[in-house]
Every structure is written in structure tokens, then in C-alpha cells.
């Protein structure tokens, strides 16, 4: 095929050199790439694309733990080594053949289509950032390929962007419940909350979290005042001024949705200067940092895991197996991104096994409205016509056990899904500001 292109020389010579070279280079290049991907999946395997951050600042806290969990789960699923109802090999009888792609790219959509068309994946599981999800969800509907968003938090995906999803699913709860549950936990534990302050990263996720948290607080205890609202740049790592501002404004409660390196830096810098003693601090994504920091995380900090993951996960055979397998392989306990990835993969397996096939349409049919058990408990695809998962969540209070040198959570409170999530069809902000209509908190 390449030869035929090269033979076009007479055609090129008649033209300007520039053009011929350009054309030949372009066509030559493309024919090389155009060669059909030979590895047309054998019948017994199903290609799955995994897109998470493998470079940049979101890689360490989110992307890589998620990729690790994916590798672990794929091996276990293919070997039929997952306990419980998942002990059959493969999904719907087919082995998972993964392709990993870095989400840290400026051409996410083109990368997505490359996975679909060149690599011929049957489905794509991925996307940590809400920005990616917003761009990918419509693309998935256009490309008509099953796409499972496993982590990103923005409620807009099915509320505004893809209102009638066919190919897009999200197997994790959205971010509203993190903030609503944080406020409910605070009220339930009876901590003084006369003045609240926030320190959240200045980007969509941080802004949304603070808006939902302060909104919920205003609903739950009407005399709450805001002491200060800090929005440092994401990944700035230096929070000296912000901590001073938090110290001088003397709030009862400090709320933060920091994650990753920023979270750890804030805990180190804040605990050194006593902010955790002066105010009650809520870290809605604190679970990723607690085992890493150990004694450095001050006792009494309220910790969330963006869902009932990690240390907040219920005791079950599946969960103990997952924790042990992950620890044995990677030397650390799995954090919530790992749980969410495992949850997504088990959802796919449950759907494929139920349908008895790994075909896209079969999986879509079975996954819609499905309820399954993940390592963090029951997940049900209850919203957005069965495409958006809801899940309860939980918060706990940090306690460092000096005798065993281990990080633990005490006073854990579980919140049922209906308590912290808006009902189907309701917009998250309106639901909060309207006083949580229809919320069931037993």
C-alpha cells in the first residue's frame, strides 16, 4: 500500500515541490497508520480503554491508584478470583484486555475517538476530572460507545449536558452528597457551628463544594455565619497566608475539599500552626491522606472519602478481599479512587454476567438501573433513567491509635443515598436551597 503512494511521484513532480512533499508526507504517514489494527479481538476477549491521569498532579492521588485498582481487578476478574457472586472468569465469559491512556492531554476528545476507532475498544472506563467528563459525555453519545465515568463529580453531566443518556453511565455518586453529608455530620455530632470558614481550591470542584456546604449549613442551622472564604489556586502548595486568615477570623468550623498534594500540604502547614486545635476541620476528601500522614493528621478531624469508600466502607467479604489484595500488591491500602474504579469494573461484570454477554448492547441493557455490590456496599443506578449511580455516604472522625500506630476513624455515621442526594429530576442547588425536599434520612 505504501508503494502505491510513493509511485505518485510523477503526479507530485508536476506540482510544486512543496505540495508534493506535503501531500506525500501526509498520505504516506497516514497510510502507515491506516493499516487496520490486526489484533481484531479474538472472540473470548473484550478490549476496554482506561483513561485516568498518569502524569501531572492528579496522577499520584487519583490516576495511579485508580489504574492500580484496574490492573488488580482485571487480573482477578480474568482469573475468576474475586469473591462473592463475581467468582466466574471474565465478564460475560470474555477476558478483559485493557488499554491505558493518560487523561492529562489537551485533545481528550480526539484521544477518545482514537480509542474507539483505531484501538476498537468495546467500552471505555475512566475520567477523573469533571472538565473531561463534560467534554466526553456528548462525544460518547455521538460515537455510540459505552462509556463509564467512574469518578468525576459534577452533577451537571446528566442534569444539563446529556439529559437523555444511552451510552454514558456514571457508577459513582456526584459531588453534592459530599458537602451535604459533611454538613449533616457536623450537625449530628453537635459540634458548635456558629461561624464557618472554607478553604477550597479555586476551580469548579472546590467552588461547588463550598457552595453546597455553606448552602446546606445555612439550611440546617440558620444562624451560621461565614467567617472567611479562601480560594487558593489549585496546586499552589503554599498556604501560609490562607492559614493566617483562617486563624485570625477564628471560625468554629473550617471546611476543605482539598485533595492530593494540596491536602497533605494544608494538613502539615495547618497542624504545625494549630488550626486544627482552634477550629473543627472537615476534610471531605481527607481519607486519601490519613494513612499517609498517620500521627501527623490531628485527632478529631472530620474525614470523608467522597462516598463510603476506604475506611468508611462496610465490612464485607468483598471489601476485605479487596483491601488485602491491594495491600499485598502495592504496599498501601486502597483509597477512594481505587474503590471507585473497582466499583465501576464490578458493575460492568455484574451487568455482563447478568446479560451473559460482553456485547455493548447487552451490557448497556443490563447496566441500566442495575443494583450491585461493590467493595463499598450497594450501588444502584437510580438516577438519569438508570444511568447515574446513587450510593450512600459516610463521614467519620479521625483518631490515631498510638498503640498500633494506625490511622482509624471513629463515630462513623452512614447517610442513606436518599438523604444526601437530590431525587431524580431535581437540580442539586435548588434542592439544597429549597430545604432538601423529599430527603429521607432515617
Amino acid at each position, binding site marked *: 500500500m505504501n508503494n502505491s503512494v510513493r509511485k505518485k511521484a510523477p503526479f507530485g513532480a508536476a*506540482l*510544486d*515541490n*512543496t*505540495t508534493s*512533499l*506535503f*501531500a506525500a*508526507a*501526509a*498520505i504516506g*504517514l*497516514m497510510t502507515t*497508520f*491506516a493499516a487496520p489494527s490486526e489484533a481484531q479481538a479474538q472472540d473470548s476477549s473484550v478490549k476496554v480503554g482506561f483513561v485516568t491521569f*498518569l*502524569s501531572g498532579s492528579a496522577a499520584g492521588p487519583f490516576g495511579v491508584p485508580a489504574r492500580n485498582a484496574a490492573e488488580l481487578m482485571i487480573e482477578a476478574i480474568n482469573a475468576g478470583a474475586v469473591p462473592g457472586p463475581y467468582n466466574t472468569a471474565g465478564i460475560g465469559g470474555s477476558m478483559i484486555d485493557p488499554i*491505558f*491512556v*493518560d487523561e492529562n*492531554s*489537551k*485533545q481528550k*476528545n*480526539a*484521544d477518545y*475517538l*482514537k480509542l*474507539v*476507532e*483505531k484501538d476498537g475498544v468495546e467500552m471505555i472506563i475512566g475520567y477523573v*476530572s*469533571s*472538565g473531561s467528563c*463534560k*467534554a466526553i459525555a*456528548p*462525544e460518547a453519545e*455521538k460515537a455510540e460507545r459505552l462509556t463509564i465515568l467512574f469518578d468525576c463529580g*459534577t452533577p*451537571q453531566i446528566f442534569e444539563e*449536558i446529556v439529559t437523555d443518556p444511552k451510552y454514558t453511565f456514571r457508577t459513582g455518586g456526584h459531588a453534592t452528597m459530599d458537602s451535604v453529608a459533611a454538613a449533616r455530620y457536623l450537625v449530628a455530632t453537635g459540634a458548635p457551628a456558629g461561624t464557618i470558614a472554607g478553604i477550597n481550591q*479555586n*476551580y*469548579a470542584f472546590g*467552588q461547588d463544594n463550598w*457552595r453546597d456546604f455553606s448552602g446546606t449549613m445555612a439550611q440546617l442551622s440558620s444562624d451560621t455565619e461565614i467567617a472567611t472564604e479562601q*480560594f487558593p489556586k489549585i496546586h499552589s502548595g503554599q498556604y501560609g497566608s490562607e492559614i493566617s486568615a483562617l486563624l485570625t477570623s477564628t471560625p468554629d468550623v473550617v471546611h476543605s475539599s482539598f485533595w492530593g498534594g494540596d491536602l497533605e500540604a494544608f494538613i502539615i502547614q495547618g497542624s504545625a500552626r494549630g488550626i486544627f486545635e482552634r477550629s473543627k476541620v472537615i476534610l471531605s476528601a481527607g481519607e486519601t491522606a490519613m494513612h499517609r500522614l498517620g500521627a501527623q493528621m490531628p485527632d478529631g478531624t472530620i474525614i470523608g472519602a467522597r462516598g463510603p469508600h476506604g475506611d468508611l466502607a462496610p465490612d464485607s467479604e468483598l471489601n476485605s478481599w479487596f483491601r488485602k489484595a491491594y495491600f499485598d500488591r502495592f504496599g498501601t491500602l486502597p483509597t477512594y479512587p481505587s474503590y471507585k474504579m473497582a466499583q465501576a469494573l464490578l458493575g460492568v461484570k455484574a451487568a455482563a454476567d447478568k446479560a451473559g454477554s460482553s456485547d455493548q448492547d447487552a451490557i448497556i441493557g443490563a447496566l441500566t438501573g442495575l443494583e450491585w455490590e461493590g467493595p463499598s456496599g450497594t450501588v444502584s443506578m437510580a438516577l438519569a433513567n438508570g444511568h447515574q449511580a446513587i450510593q450512600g455516604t459516610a463521614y467519620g472522625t479521625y483518631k490515631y491509635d498510638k498503640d498500633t500506630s494506625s490511622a482509624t476513624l471513629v463515630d462513623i455515621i452512614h447517610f442513606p443515598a436518599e438523604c444526601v442526594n437530590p431525587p431524580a429530576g431535581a437540580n442539586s442547588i435548588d434542592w439544597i436551597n429549597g430545604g432538601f425536599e423529599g430527603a429521607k434520612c432515617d
Partner: protein
Amino acid sequence: MIKNLDRTEIGLLIALPILIIIAFILPKWLVNYVHVSMGTGLVALGVMIQMRAGLVSFGQGLYFCVGGYAAGMMAKFYGITDFFVLLAVGILAALVLSALLGFLLRRYREIFFAMLSLALSMILFGMLSSVEELGSTDGFNLPTASYLGWSPTGETAQLTLYTLTCIIAIGCAIALNRFLKSPIGYINEAIRENELRVEYLGTSAHKAVHITYVLAAVVSAIGGVLWALPLGHVDPEMTNWTTSGQFVFVSILSGTGNIIAPMIGTFLLEIVRVYAVEISPNTWQMILGTVMLLTIIFLPKGLWSLITRKKKATRDDGASAPIAGE
């Protein structure tokens, strides 16, 4: 008419149908990279024409973003989906902004031009990142474009958009080629060589720089609209310095020798990245960095020198590609 065209322009005109035909021959995923590369390639082109005057814009993402956002906001708030209106709005927004900022920037050269343009683009980044109505850092989505009342869907929509993108991109390239061959284009090269002499000769360097700046802004905004529409999404990342940096790197890598170089360079770099990710998803940056380094070592005048060098072997046509900003 044809007589007035130079070789590059003839080349571009011939490339146009080839580009369009490509959409029917090549696999769709590759056409996709060609498509988005035309959008970002236009911005690299904007960077390149400023480089001809010795100005390195480390904030060209500003206009890339202004174009995309202007079009997007038109669609979001006024429900307008017509391709031509959106494009016009993007152009207009960039035109007004750059004409104003040009008064400030035209006084700057070298690294100070680079850093001031960077600062301005980052101020926009900061502002967009705090506007909740525009989705903050997550950005917002654009609808599928319509064309003078005709609203195609699916495959047809993609092909229409692709064809129009090809035509506009090639049109811009031809127009800019004309610009480089115009008096101001040559004044720019003189400014790069020695600005003081230009002033002594009685020409206003400031004016030439201002016009070049506005032109680059408009082309970048067109690039922004053409990039945002197939993607259906804009976010402030478009005006982050890392994005602007990439445009500069593409321009240097491709060479400033020819108007087509940045467009091809954009595409090639994209493909290198895609394959680097495929070969080694965890260390693709290392591969990309190595490729860039090797290109600079062996092709100091950019990728385009491969072609000019070959040309020289066949016929000695004098004017070789000047090095960026020397």
C-alpha cells in the same frame, strides 16, 4: 488571478481538495486529529507570524480562548448556533480586544513581550476560572453548529464542519502568506533584524507590530472557534500558559520558513504524542521531550528545513528560512 499566486499558495490550493478527500479515505480517528490540528495549527500560525517580527507570544492562548468562549457564549446565552455568526463573533471579539491591548503590547520586545502576553492570558484564565455561570474551570459545552438555517446531524454534520474548517484554514494560510509578502511583512523581518534602523528609515515599527498583533489575534480566534465547535466544549485551559507554550513550541519546531509549516508541525507533534502515549502511557512525556530535543539538534531551523534543504539541492532559490526570532 492564478498568475498572482506564488508557489506556496498554489500548493495550499492543491492541498485543499486533498485535505477534504482525506476525510473519506482515512480512518475517522486520524481525520479527527487532522481536524483539531487545523484549529490549533491556526493559533501556531498566529504565533509564527509574530515570530517573524522577533516577537514570541507566550500568551497566544488568550485569543484562542477568546474566540472559543465568544462563540460558545453566543450559543449558550442567545441560542445562536449558526456557524458563520459564531465565527464572526469570535473574530470580532478578538479584533476589539487585540486592537486595544495592541496599544500596550506594541511597545514591548523579546522576553518582555513574551511575559506580558503571558500575564494577560493568565489574567483571563483567572477570571474565567471564577465565573460560575461559565462553568468555572470545567468550562461549558457548545451545541452542534447549523449553517444558514441548515442543521445537519451525525456524519453529515462532521463532514460539513470538517470541510468548512479546511477551507477556512487554507484561506487563512493564504491570507497570511500574502501578509508576509506585503510591505508590513517585510518591515516585520526588518524589525527582527534591527528595529532602530527601521525607525530611521521613516517607518513606524509600532504600527507594524500592532497590525501583526491584531492579525495574529484574529487568526488565533478563528482557530479557537474551529477547535471548539467539533469538540463541543470550551474551558479556561485554552488560555492557560501551558497551552500557549505548546503553540510556541510547535512554531519553533516546525520552523518559521513557510506558512504551512506550523499546521503540519501541529499535526505531526500530535501524532508523535498519540503514539508515545500508546507505547508508554506512563512515560510518554519523556519520549515527547526526546523527540523535541533531537529535532532541535538535527534540524535547528525546524522541520520545514527538511523541505527547504531538499529544494535547495534541486534549485538554488536564495531566500532560505530564517531562524526564529534571530
